[in-house]
């Protein structure tokens, strides 16, 4: 990884963290409502995934703010969406869980656990059919690996040798339920083994995630069929703002935070790329400003007009 990319990843991670902290603050202030799922602790994973898979199509879950902005969507438009404003990426109609932007090949923002996986399979079929170079990546949580949609997708993607990267974000919990209580395995790659090549990576290590996913991406682009990558990581917050998350004890959280992806990346910037404190601080400040701007923009943005209620029911008047 060259220095520029390392800086870029670090910047996006910090941007992501600050974005999430701002979202949290504005949720508590009542500017944002509904379910808000924060990605704090997982930024290294989210950012590295987007950088490694910069060109293909991405399908993901409701925990997608950091991915969306790292993918290139304007933080202003994403924050405005969280605020439910008309300047939001989905004109305030989708909300935090439903960020869509085809111009960045970003298709959700799906709030049905596992629901996006068959969609990604279909998209991968389209890519193969059209003989396009780039494949598709689908991101989902450990909780999704117990559902039928996931399994049907493993089977179909494998039978059809589709250019699809299954990326499992294994943070060990589905809301309050520890994965090992409802799955026979701690690592869900086990489930994909009969169907495709699987890889595991430390999801708290952005560089490792980046390297692993690039390898996986090359494999799918080269026609090897689907690949499954599992990233082991931690979310720091509760599942969503309505979950205090007290099913995890202090010790567990402490171990998690010792693996903090931002600190780790920072250390690398220092040690490997020889960035100074000041340089790092400048990146952080730039990120903070971008988030402040996003909040300011979102606050000032207008709400949708009531007439919009009836827009986009169909592609045109029928």
């Amino acid at each position, binding site marked *: 990884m060259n220095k520029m990319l390392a800086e870029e990843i670090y910047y996006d991670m910090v941007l992501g963290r600050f974005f999430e902290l701002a979202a949290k603050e504005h949720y508590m202030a009542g500017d944002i409502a509904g379910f808000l799922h924060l990605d704090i602790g997982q930024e290294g994973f989210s950012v590295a995934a987007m950088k490694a898979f910069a060109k293909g*199509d991405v*399908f993901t879950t409701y925990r997608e703010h950091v991915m969306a902005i790292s993918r290139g969507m304007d933080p202003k438009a994403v924050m405005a969406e969280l605020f439910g404003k008309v300047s939001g*990426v*989905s*004109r305030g*109609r*989708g909300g935090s869980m*439903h960020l*869509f*932007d*085809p111009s960045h090949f970003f*298709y*959700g923002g*799906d709030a*049905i656990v596992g*629901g996006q*996986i*068959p*969609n*990604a*399979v*279909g*998209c*991968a*079929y*389209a*890519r193969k*059919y*059209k003989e396009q170079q780039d494949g*598709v990546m689908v991101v989902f949580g450990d909780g999704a690996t117990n559902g*039928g*949609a996931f399994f*049907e*997708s493993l*089977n*179909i993607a494998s*039978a059809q040798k589709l250019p699809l990267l299954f990326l499992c974000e294994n943070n060990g919990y589905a809301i309050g339920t520890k994965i090992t209580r409802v799955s026979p395995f701690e690592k869900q790659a086990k489930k994909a083994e009969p169907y495709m090549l699987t890889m595991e990576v430390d999801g708290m290590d952005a560089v490792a995630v980046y390297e692993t996913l690039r390898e996986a991406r090359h494999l799918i682009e080269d026609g090897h069929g689907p690949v499954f990558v599992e990233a082991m990581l931690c979310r720091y917050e509760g599942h969503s703002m309505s979950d205090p998350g007290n099913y995890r004890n202090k010790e567990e959280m402490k171990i998690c935070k010792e693996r903090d992806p931002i600190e780790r990346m920072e250390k690398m910037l220092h040690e490997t790329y020889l960035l100074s404190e000041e340089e790092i601080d400048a990146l952080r400040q730039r990120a903070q400003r971008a988030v402040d701007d996003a909040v300011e923009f979102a606050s000032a943005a207008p709400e949708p007009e009531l007439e919009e209620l009836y*827009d*986009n*029911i*169909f*592609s*045109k008047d*029928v």
Partner: protein
Amino acid sequence: MLYREALNRAIDEAMEIDSDVVVLGEDVGLYGGSYRVTEGLVSKYGEERLIDTPIAELSIVGNAVGMAIGGLRPVAEIMTVNFALLAFDQIINHMAKYHYMSAGKITLPMVVRFPQGVSRQLAAQHSESYEQMLSAVPGLIVFAASDVNYAYHALKYAILSDDPVIFIEHELLYNKKGEIDLNTELDPFKARIVKKGKDITIVSYLKMVDDVMEAVPEIEKQLGKSCEVIDLCSLNPIDFKTLESSLKKTGAIVVVEEDHKMGGYGAQIVSWAAEEMFYSLDAAPLRIAGADVTIPYNRRLELASIPTPEEIKARILAWGAENGV
């Protein structure tokens, strides 16, 4: 030409016009479709465009959604509507919603087609009708094809249009004969006046249209009145205009559907008539629908569970007498 041949032709022509049109479903390719709707297409367009899928309905629709996102125009076949229940999440939470919730950024040019209804003793898990459920989902266009001409035009329209369409066929109509009219443009959203009349408006769709038509001559004779028979064709959106002008003329409405009465689609039409046309109604509306039971296997019970031409006749005659129609 048969109804299934008309459907086949619609798909064939759409595939010819646009190489992004693909068909997917169980046994749609090499086997030619369990009701032979896709027969012969695989040899013309290849297995990449006639995709035999595993038995995984959730994926059939879910993949179609993804194909549409990826720039294709998928036509998904569900063997019968009963199995579509497995795909309801993808139909309702994804196919129907993505366009709206993305504020129009995602467009899903796709069709999900399937037969439904009571055929001949296919029993509890193969005889259902779910138009009431699917028509109640904002974002879905729902067409129901009762004849050859509509089947052809509406399906071709559905495949080439940019919206998600649920296309309902009926198990007993596949061998129905008819002609395709290529000279007149057909608006698939418009209800079809199957027979003009001035005293009673009978609204129906799918196979019940034929059963109504079978009952009508005797009804007209015995009541001494004339019936206007309307085939809804588009179940969502509904062509209320056509219904309204008929009802203004007749002042009496009968709705005939095959599905269970409780919560059935027809309630929608009668409730509209009561709300919007109340002061034009000269008689209590009448709903003729199936019994509120799971469909039984035994033929007598099966027939007793759905309206038949005889029942339609008897019910309308009794209603006519009671309400002075």
